[in-house]
């Protein structure tokens, strides 16, 4: 099986601070991959580099075997493979455009007739449980949960094979975060999408990802299959992280 994303020796400094310090990893196609770490670990910078929003000082990123190039032609090609889901997906909808306009933009990029875009969109909206009427609204007129789904629908309209979600549950209540995570898992399975989840929430990554890396200060501390990575961590830092996580223990609950 080929790699969806492979990174070798990614290095980046912002002035004095080292943001990425020789990060290498590969993400297999069709799997779910977790990147965990605390603030300043470089996980978000890594995501921005993968998306081409941040240039590296050294190192190489390959997306579906193609080296990442910073040109408009390459960006256009890449947009069809890889799409982000930003930390606050509601904020990734342009506030002064109707959702219809935002969706049609995707069709224009794909050089697809509006009717065809609308037809595909109808299917996606239905699948995400969104009423067809949302497309006539402005982003501020819909609820936060709906905006989150609209942002995901827009990404899916590009028919990507890789989705990168940055802190998908940040700021969400426990009672609703599961909804989003279940949705992401469903999409991944049915569309055979490679899902990369960047999160500080270890418990969630443990459940959703098949493989993961733990990052700290721009370096990959430890990585591997999730069961062994979290079940028997080799590095002290990983153990500290797991120990510090405030969580009800499954063993304690009767049910």
């Amino acid at each position, binding site marked *: 099986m080929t790699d969806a994303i492979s990174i070798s020796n990614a290095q980046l400094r912002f002035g004095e601070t080292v943001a990425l310090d020789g990060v290498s990893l590969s993400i297999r196609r069709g799997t*779910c991959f977790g990147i965990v770490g*605390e*603030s300043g670990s470089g996980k978000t910078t890594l995501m921005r580099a993968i998306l081409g929003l941040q240039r590296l000082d050294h190192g190489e990123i390959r997306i579906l075997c193609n080296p990442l190039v910073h040109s408009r032609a390459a960006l256009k090609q890449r947009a069809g493979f890889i799409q982000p889901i930003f930390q606050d997906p509601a904020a990734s909808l342009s506030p002064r455009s109707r959702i219809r306009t935002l969706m049609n933009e995707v069709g224009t990029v794909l050089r697809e007739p509006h009717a065809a875009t609308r037809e595909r969109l109808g299917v996606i909206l239905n699948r995400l449980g969104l009423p067809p009427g949302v497309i006539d609204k402005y982003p501020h007129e819909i609820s936060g949960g709906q905006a989150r789904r609209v942002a995901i629908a827009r990404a899916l309209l590009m028919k990507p094979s890789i989705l990168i979600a940055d802190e998908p549950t940040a700021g969400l*209540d*426990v*009672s*609703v*975060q*599961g*909804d989003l*995570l*279940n949705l992401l*898992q469903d999409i*991944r*399975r049915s569309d055979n999408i490679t899902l990369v989840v960047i999160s*500080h*929430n*270890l*418990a*969630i990554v*443990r*459940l*959703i*990802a*098949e493989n993961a890396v733990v990052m700290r200060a721009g370096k990959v501390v430890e990585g591997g299959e*999730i*069961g062994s990575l979290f*079940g028997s961590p080799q590095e002290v830092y990983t153990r*500290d*992280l*797991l*120990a*510090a*996580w*405030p*969580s*009800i*223990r*499954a*063993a*304690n*609950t*009767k*049910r």
Partner: protein
Amino acid sequence: MAISLRNLSVDYSLQQGTAHALRGVSLEIQEGEMLGLVGESGSGKSTVALALMGLLANNAQVTSGTATIEGKNFDLTKRNATAALRGRGMAMIFQDPMLSLNPVFTIGAQLCEVLRRRAPGSDRKTRVEMAQDALAKVKLSNPARRMNQYPHELSGGMRQRVVIAMALLSEPALLIADEPTTALDVTVEAQIMREIIGLRDRIGCAVLLITHSLGLVTEYCDAISVLYAGEKLESGTVEEVQRQPGHPYTRMLFDCEVPIDRQRHADASENRFTVIAGELPDPRLRPPGCIFNSRCDVSFEDCTTINPSDYPVRNDAGHSARCLRLRTP
């Protein structure tokens, strides 16, 4: 001496009408105990802290509520009812430590200021020593140097330690910590929680921990109160409530929490996350019956009409919940 808060109701007047942020919330915290007040966004948990401290916004109105702190009663419906307690009887730790720290003064100056109000007779040298000692107690590295530093020179975790040191010096009867670790990394969170516990044990105060995280409460608190849409639905010791939640909402909330030691199934479809379907009721129009009725998985006919009162769970005096299923016929 126990701290108690009785029948607190707070309204916010908004453009679209009056929102009832809290409806008749009562809490009790024993001396030397930490109570975790758990609620999701919109539950009104922060309003409890602000009402106690007298820091509510101008469009907020306390319509009822009394507090007993250090044996004295305070009528919270009066503006500045607890002003006399600020900095002495009560201290607060905010999510953002910069709300408690003045950016233009050094750490040392701010700690000494607390002492000057707390112990007016003391001389400067003793105050500096006491302040430095407090910084050492909250395990801030290199306390002598920190005294002369400004808040912006410290990291988020270090600032929160300084705020805890301030609380330590003011020796409050009640410490209110509103999401004190939400902005911090997990490893720092654990350290800060340990310092809060340490402070409580040192001065024997009551602590009100306001949080959205059940994990934090089960790990660090003695008692728990569950707030939903401005109403308290359940309270009891953490052990009891976790073992047998009296209210369906509490049970569902515990189910939503993902335990860190939950194993991943090889079959991806097995790795489902639990959710509570539905949405919060409109804070302006309270539906009749139980406030949680529309989202409840075990509701029955009476739930839509009867607003349940507090029933004991398993005849345990300290554990009660507002669910009609606990009603004894």
